[in-house]
C-alpha cells in the first residue's frame, strides 16, 4: 500500500471508527501515574516500570489495531514503519510522527514526535537528576515493543532524546533484532 493510501485509511478510521475523548484526561492520568511511580521508585526503575506497563498495553493494543484496520502483513520493515507512524499513532494518539534516520541495513529507524499528548504542560523537576535519568514517555517504547512482538518482530525500542530533558526534539529509535518463529507455548499441545 502506498503512503498516500495509508494516510487516507488512517484519516477514515480516525473520523469514523474511533470513539474520541478529550486528550487532557489522558495527559492528566498519565502524569498522575508517573508522579506516583517517581515517589515509589528510583528513576531507573520508573523507566523499567513504564516500559513494562507499555508492553502489557501493546500486547492488547495490537489486537484492536488489526480489528479496526483490517490490514494484512507488512511486506518489509520499511512498510512496518509507515504503518506504525501513519496509522498506529494516528489511530491511538491522533499524532503522526516522522520516520527518519534509517540505518544502512534497513533494520533501524527513528520516529520523531513533534507533538506528544503525554507531555502537554509537563516539566521535569529541576533537582534529583530527573533530566538525566527519566524518560517520561517510556510507556510508548513498551507499547511499540509489545505490538511488534505480537507480529513476530523482536525489536528494541528506546528514546534517544526528549524535549522534556532539554533536547531539541523527541526521538525514539526502533531496532529490529530478529524475526520470531511461531512457537507453541510450553505445556500446550
Amino acid at each position, binding site marked *: 500500500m502506498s503512503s498516500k493510501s495509508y494516510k487516507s485509511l488512517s484519516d477514515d478510521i480516525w473520523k469514523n471508527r*474511533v470513539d474520541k475523548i*478529550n486528550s487532557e*484526561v*489522558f495527559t492528566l*492520568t498519565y502524569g498522575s501515574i508517573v508522579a*506516583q511511580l517517581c515517589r515509589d521508585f528510583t528513576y531507573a526503575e520508573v523507566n523499567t516500570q513504564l516500559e513494562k506497563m507499555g508492553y502489557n498495553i501493546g500486547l492488547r493494543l495490537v489486537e*484492536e489495531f488489526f480489528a479496526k484496520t483490517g490490514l494484512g502483513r507488512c511486506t518489509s520493515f520499511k512498510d512496518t514503519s509507515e504503518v506504525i507512524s501513519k496509522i498506529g499513532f494516528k489511530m491511538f494518539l491522533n499524532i503522526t510522527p516522522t520516520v527518519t534516520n534509517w540505518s544502512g541495513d534497513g533494520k533501524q529507524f527513528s520516529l520523531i514526535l513533534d507533538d506528544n499528548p503525554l507531555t502537554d504542560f509537563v*516539566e521535569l523537576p529541576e533537582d534529583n537528576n530527573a533530566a538525566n535519568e527519566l524518560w517520561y514517555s517510556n510507556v510508548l517504547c513498551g507499547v511499540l515493543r509489545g505490538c511488534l512482538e505480537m507480529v513476530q518482530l523482536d525489536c528494541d525500542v528506546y528514546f534517544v532524546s526528549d524535549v522534556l530533558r532539554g533536547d531539541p526534539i523527541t526521538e525514539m529509535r526502533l531496532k529490529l533484532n530478529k524475526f520470531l518463529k511461531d512457537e507453541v507455548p510450553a505445556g500446550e499441545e
Partner: protein
Amino acid sequence: SIYDKNLFRNNHDINLSSLSFLFSEMISLSQSNSKGIQHLEKKLNNLGYSIGIKYLELINLRENYINNLNSNKNYVNGRREIRIIELLQFIHTKVWKSLFGKIANNLEKSSDKLNEYMITDDEPIFSKFISIPKDFGDLNCCAFVAGIIEGITDSAYLQATVTAHTVASAEFPTRTVYLINFNEDVIKREKL
C-alpha cells in the same frame, strides 16, 4: 517553556481505548501493591486527587476566559464557588463537560444525612471496558474519578470525602453514584 504555552488551546482528541488501556495498567499497578479492595480504591483515589486539586483552578480560568470573550467588553469576573450546592452544580456541569464531554446525569441531596450529596453518572467512560470479577465484590474503579472530585472540593476549601458506588440499573449496568460527604466544619460554615 511550558509557562509560555497557551492554556486555551484547541481541543486535541484522543482515542478512548488509549485511555482505557492506560487506566487498566494503572489499576494493575495499584493492585500489585495493595492488600485489599479498600486499599486499592484508596490508591486510585489518591491518583485522582492530585488531578483534582489542579483542575478547579484550570477550569475556572478557562470559564473566565470564555465568559470574557462572549460578553463584549463587559468583563464578567469568574465566580469562586463558596457554597456547597453551587460547587456541586459546577462539578456536575462544567467539570464533567470538560473531562468527559457530557454533563453528569443527576445531582441529589441525601434525605437522611445532612452532609451527604450524590452525583450520578449513567455511563462513566472509565468503566466502559471494565468488568469486575465476582471475588472483587464492590470494587468500583471510578474511585479514580471520586479522587478527582475530592481534589476539587478540597481545593475549593469545602473538604469532603468522596466514594464511588456502582448502582446498576437495567439500562445502564455501569451506572455509578459518587457519594460526597462534606466535613462537619463545612456544614457549620454553610449555616452562617
